């Protein structure tokens, strides 16, 4: 073994020791290449999810039923854009380029949360998305506030505060509908029926099929497994549905006294894999929308750059 390798092994050992001692890794600290790559992949996927996530909700901004709901929805979508922005900044601290990662999204190389490939068909979906999707996002993200990588952990602290606000707003919409007219209650139930399983899929493949989990947990990029988080989500959400008189669309759902949690039915993993591979109901539409936004806006960016350069030149002369 040559000196270079010995050094690398020492560095890796030192790095793992820091992680084990819960010392945060900062951008200028040494880190293994694979740690950096994993983080770039995970954080940029998270950023893309925030941005693509603007689309299903943006779909109802112009049709919100009253002024207050319109304002709240706009504010929520604006928050999601802000989350995207912090997360892209966190990616850049790892030496990745924001626009390169965005181009990966547009080419289909980079993934984003599978949930946003489902359509928002009724106003009730604005409630369900907040309640379940932001709810699941919180489950996923609260542990990330203790992630080993400093900039990501700090971004998550900020993001989680806003996500829990979104979750409450969403639940408030759905609770109102569930207690509203029969038509409104039906809207709420139909929406829950459509979103429940896709929401459970948000936690990713089951632990036995999750290829990244073990290493990520060792690095404290991930602090709980997919199945652990999914179980927590089910346990928190089922009583909420019961409280407002909605039925979770799972005939196998029942309380398990021994594990002090709910047992739930088998997730349709074929559907999940299909959506991940680009065959969900809205995959093409979502990615096209984002790509078009960039392509149609290219002349605007170019103008801004050209103008800035002219200004710079004028100053210099």
């Amino acid at each position, binding site marked *: 073994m040559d000196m270079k390798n010995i050094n690398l092994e020492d560095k890796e050992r030192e790095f793992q020791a820091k992680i084990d001692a819960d010392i945060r890794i900062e951008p200028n600290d040494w880190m293994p290449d694979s740690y950096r790559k994993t983080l770039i992949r995970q954080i940029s996927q998270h950023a893309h999810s925030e*941005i693509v996530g*603007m*689309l299903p909700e*943006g779909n109802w*901004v*112009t*049709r*919100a*039923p*009253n*002024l*207050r*709901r*319109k*304002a709240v929805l*706009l*504010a929520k*979508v*604006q928050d999601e*854009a*802000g989350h*995207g*922005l912090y997360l*892209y900044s966190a990616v850049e601290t790892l030496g990745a380029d924001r626009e390169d990662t965005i181009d990966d999204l547009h080419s289909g190389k980079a993934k984003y949360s599978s949930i946003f490939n489902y359509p928002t068909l009724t*106003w009730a979906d604005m409630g369900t998305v907040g309640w379940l999707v932001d709810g699941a996002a919180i489950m996923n993200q609260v542990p990330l506030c203790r992630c080993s990588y400093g900039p990501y952990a700090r971004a998550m602290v900020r993001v989680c505060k806003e996500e829990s606000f979104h979750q409450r707003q969403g639940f408030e*919409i759905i609770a*109102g*509908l569930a207690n*509203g*007219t029969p*038509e*409104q209650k039906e809207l709420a139930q139909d929406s829950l029926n459509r979103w429940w399983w896709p929401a459970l899929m948000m936690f990713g493949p089951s632990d036995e099929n999750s290829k990244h989990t073990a290493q990520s947990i060792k690095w404290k990029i991930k602090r709980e497994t997919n199945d652990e988080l999914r179980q927590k989500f089910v346990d928190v959400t089922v009583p909420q549905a019961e409280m407002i008189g909605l039925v979770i669309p799972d005939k196998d759902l029942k309380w398990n006294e021994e594990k002090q949690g709910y047992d739930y039915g088998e997730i349709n993993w074929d559907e999940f894999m299909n959506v991940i591979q680009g065959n969900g109901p809205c995959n093409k539409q979502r990615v096209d*929308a984002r790509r*078009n*936004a*960039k392509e*149609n*806006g*290219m*002349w*605007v*960016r*170019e*103008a*801004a*750059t*050209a*103008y800035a350069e*002219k200004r710079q030149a004028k100053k210099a002369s």
Partner: protein
Amino acid sequence: MEINKQDALFEFVLRIADDSLILGHRISEWCGHGPILEEDIALTNIALDFVGQATNFYDYAAKVEGKCRTADDLAFLRFEREYKNVLLVEQPNGHFGDTIARQFFFDVFRKLFFEELAKSTDEELAGIAEKSLLETKYHLRHSSEWMIRLGDGTEESHAKIQESVDTLWRYTGELFFSNEVDALLLNEKIGVDIAALKRPWEKQVREILGEATIEIPAHAWQQAGGRTGVHSEHLGYLLTELQYMQRAYPGMEW
């Protein structure tokens, strides 16, 4: 035509609210489709300000009217001919330059208008105007900066924004519309001398367009009609979308 003070005030406030609602709606159509993420955030934020302004002005209009209608009733449950916004704000978004030019023309007007309205003897109205003025200054800075960047950016952006200005110029004259409603309220020191805003508007617009190397269109023809409820064909579709939930599920709360 005789008009009493209450009716005049209702009409006057409605015009302001409708301008805010319809423009806010248009900007919100950009949500998720902006040319860069930072602009998505800025445009959503501006849309949000306009929805907030609309809410404040509708609330007040409802109070002035005194017929138990709410802000939401006014925003969502009138018919096309009852909306009193100017034609400019209902024009489609087009490309980013079209949206920015529409915004810029309106922002220059709105800032001048709110500066005057903030001096109204109607304290409630003055209060809403003052709050809205703060936001409007930010909107104007945003739209002016983009006018300059696009105008003095690339050849392509210059051509595009010049075309936007040429197209939208015909809707700017209506910003200065006034009739007996304004005359009566001006007399009562509640309203604004809208005609007097035209010169400062032109001056400020010329200044920014000059810096942006954009030419002021030579044609002088001006379209009008919005303030009297005679709109462009675009408004009907906008309202269809805006009112969908209220029309589909009458009388329900959300």
